[in-house]
């Protein structure tokens, strides 16, 4: 074992190396590590915030959906009521219309019947007259009734 210049050389090398490490290495690497740690902490905080925001939004959306559902239910109810009203009204109108139509038809039929009756009556009269004429024509024999016919003709 002997101590020599190597000792001094190593001491100088160590001082220089440690100084270099302190000046040019440690702060940079430590800075990067600490910056990343801060970024990660910020990121985690942001994620936490995002999560709570999401939960809040979810609650809000659920409330909105419930409200919308309630409103939709009301609208449907209203529509149903209105529809049954309309149906009801239409039925009533239809009933009225039916009665009116029936009335009209009935009076028309009455008129037709009357007219037919009149026609029939006229026809019957004509037929009766014609029948009577025929009967009369056969009954009246020129030889039997000539005198009367002559008289008639004379009167005419």
């Amino acid at each position, binding site marked *: 074992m002997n101590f020599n210049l190597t000792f001094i050389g190593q001491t100088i090398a160590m001082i220089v190396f440690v100084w270099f490490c302190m000046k040019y290495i440690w702060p940079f*690497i430590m800075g990067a590590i600490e910056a990343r740690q801060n970024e990660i902490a910020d990121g985690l905080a942001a994620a936490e915030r995002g999560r709570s925001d999401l939960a809040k939004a979810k609650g809000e959306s659920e409330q909105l959906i419930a409200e919308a559902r309630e409103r939709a239910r009301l609208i449907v109810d209203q529509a149903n009521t209105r529809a049954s009203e309309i149906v009801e009204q239409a039925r009533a109108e239809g009933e009225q219309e039916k009665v009116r139509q029936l009335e009209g038809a009935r009076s028309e039929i009455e008129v037709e019947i009357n007219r037919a009756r009149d026609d029939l009556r006229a026809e019957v009269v004509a037929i009766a007259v014609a029948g009577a004429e025929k009967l009369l024509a056969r009954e009246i024999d020129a030889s039997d009734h000539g005198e009367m016919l002559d008289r008639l003709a004379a009167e005419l």
Partner: protein
Amino acid sequence: MEEEAHGAGAQSASDYINHHLTNLQVCRIDGEWVWNHCEAGLFSLNVLNVDSMVIAFLLGAGFLYLFRRVAKNATSGRPGKLQTAIELLVGFVDGSVKDAFQGHNKVIAPLSLTIFVWVFLMNLMDLIPVDWLPEAAAAAGVEYLKVVPTTDPNITFAMSLSVFVLVIYYSIKIKGFGGFTKELTMHPFTPPTRGIGIVTAPFFIAFNFILEGVSLLSKPLSLSLRLFGNMYAGELIFILIALLGLYQLPLHFGWAVFHILVITLQAFIFMVLTIVYLSQAHDTGH
């Protein structure tokens, strides 16, 4: 440079081991560059272990280059795979620092990162089969090459003493010179401050100072010797295994797998103790 026969047959086992444990040294003697024949005592400032120095420097520079490239392009957005890996490492070191040290200090964390990665990389050289780099160096005309810088006490002591200087510096900066002195002399046995017993105070102070001084000085010593000893022993075992011929393969594999744990652990211990010592230096609530 002197040429030596490298054939395994021409070498005795102890030559082989010694060769692997010898640093490539250069020194300046009488105005000439001399390689590997330096008269080295315990302290000889004209000698340089070229291999330890170059490998340690290259590993440190490579580590800084890689990390710098990532740091320059570091994005706080989606990181690439390399950035993720390096951030993992940086985060690990940062976590270790924050566990042990509550105060505010801009130096400790980068220092810990540098120490951890650098020591780990230097230890990692231990996992390269022991003959590869020395044989390659020999083929290139370099006589000796000790590959693992942390098996060189120069390297480990340089690092631990740098940490020690920082410990002293922050102790004085945070506690003041008086506070630091007080910490060394007034604990663990509080000297009497009144009555007749006050004459014994200097003994208390001296005793405390010896205790605290030893505990203070043992910090850098244990820090560097632990790393050095572990790595040196591990390297030695690799060398011994390499002597076994064909049987070395399974043994080498087993020891290498175990050693992965050791080198990581040693780098981690060096880093953690650095943090602990520096955090003690900042600790005013004594």
